[in-house]
């Protein structure tokens, strides 16, 4: 009854189109996930720093942004961007732009929390010593605090990257052809949902599990 031949027959479409985004549909899980991780983390660093800023006009908006995003489902944020950006810019935005914007806005809040916790894990004395040596605030951050903080953050950061990688499947809701959407497209023709969805589950698993193995090894190396 089960027929995994359907996976073999459509392997190229699922992997080349769905996972890597090479083909007539554009799309691609990795083409979305990698920029989203890089941009989300980069902006997250600023969000984390902003939450710790002494100036209230910086820290209060950053806190509100983080609390707001953390209280709302990602699906909601995707719909917001999908409806609002075309209204604001008065031009249609491709699904890729909508999805990437939504992920960056959403994940930057979570990355920001991790960065904040990481920075707070660096002992205060370090900052005081750096200031005493005559470093400016930016230099203190760049040379003393962030290098140590980032090392403490790695396990939580990798976990969040795994979450983001899984979340990219939600881009299929607005029609972006990622791995999940590719499986849906194939399933519409072949009607083999069990085999197809189980297969993409395994593909996602291979990526996320290797990321978590990396995180675990890194953690062990830090501990020793």
């Amino acid at each position, binding site marked *: *009854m089960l027929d995994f031949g359907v996976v073999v027959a459509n392997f190229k479409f699922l992997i080349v189109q769905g996972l890597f985004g090479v083909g007539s549909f554009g799309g691609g899980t990795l083409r979305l996930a990698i920029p989203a991780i890089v941009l989300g983390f980069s902006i997250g660093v600023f969000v984390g720093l902003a939450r710790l800023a002494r100036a209230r006009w910086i820290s209060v908006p950053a806190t509100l942004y983080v*609390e*707001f995003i*953390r*209280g*709302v*489902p*990602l*699906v*909601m944020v995707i*719909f*917001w961007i999908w*409806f*609002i950006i075309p*209204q*604001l810019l*008065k031009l249609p935005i491709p699904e890729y732009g909508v999805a990437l914007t939504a992920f960056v806005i959403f994940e930057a809040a979570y990355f920001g929390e991790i960065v904040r916790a990481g920075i707070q894990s660096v002992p205060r004395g370090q900052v005081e010593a750096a200031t005493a040596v005559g470093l400016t605030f930016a230099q203190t951050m760049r040379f003393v605090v962030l290098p140590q903080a980032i090392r403490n953050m790695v396990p939580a950061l990798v976990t969040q990257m*795994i979450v983001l990688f*899984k*979340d*990219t*499947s*939600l881009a*299929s*809701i607005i029609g972006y052809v990622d791995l*999940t959407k590719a*499986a*849906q497209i194939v*399933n519409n023709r072949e009607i083999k*949902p*069990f*085999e*197809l*969805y*189980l297969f*993409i*589950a395994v593909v*996602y*698993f291979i990526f*996320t*599990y290797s990321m*978590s193995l990396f995180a675990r090894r890194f953690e062990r190396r830090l501990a020793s």
Partner: protein
Amino acid sequence: MNYQFNWSVLWSGQSGGWLLHGLLLTLAISVLAWVLAAVLGIVSGAMRTVPWKPLRVIATFYVEFFRNVPLLVWMFFWYFGVPPLLPRVVQDWLFNHSAEFWAGMFALGVYHGARMSEIIRAGILSIPRTQFEAAVAMGLTTFQVYRLIIVPIALRLIVPPATNDSLNLLKNSSVALTISVAELTFQARQVETYTAKAIEALTAGTVIYLVLCLGIAAIMTRVERRFAIPGLIARGG
């Protein structure tokens, strides 16, 4: 941007009723999925710490496989993939009793059960081993040790992270709209479709989620303080 705001679309016509139904369905699917997740999480979390390897292997497989695959894929898997393999009678029953709700609830519960399991395992591992040894010395069987000593203490230790993940479960229930469960996000989109007022409709949905999440978080801060074990958690008391 010249957008004409018209907030009255939210309470005129059917919109209000739709949103209310969406909210109730979101709560229903989340509560049922939460119960399933809690049971699966406690059982598999405890199994991962027992001194018998086969149980640990089964539980580890469940946790790693289910939490490392997107929830959306699980929704499709349980809704489209599994029912055709079930016996005819069960299929008929399901499709006469909103199959999408049960599939969505099951997907959400099994997925979050795996995440809850990690939290419970961490809670159990943070209990000093001497507790376990003392209980065994008193003559309790392994099962009794878990049921009477380890699990109750672990549950009190994990209230903060478990709350956090329960709120994730509530927010993740919005993914069920992809298999047409008419929950809150689904209904907010329906209001948008019927009134063509995107900002108003999405604001209504967003505000409801925010109130739910912040409200539950506020209540749980109190509960957390009540269940904290004195002397073990710095924040307690």
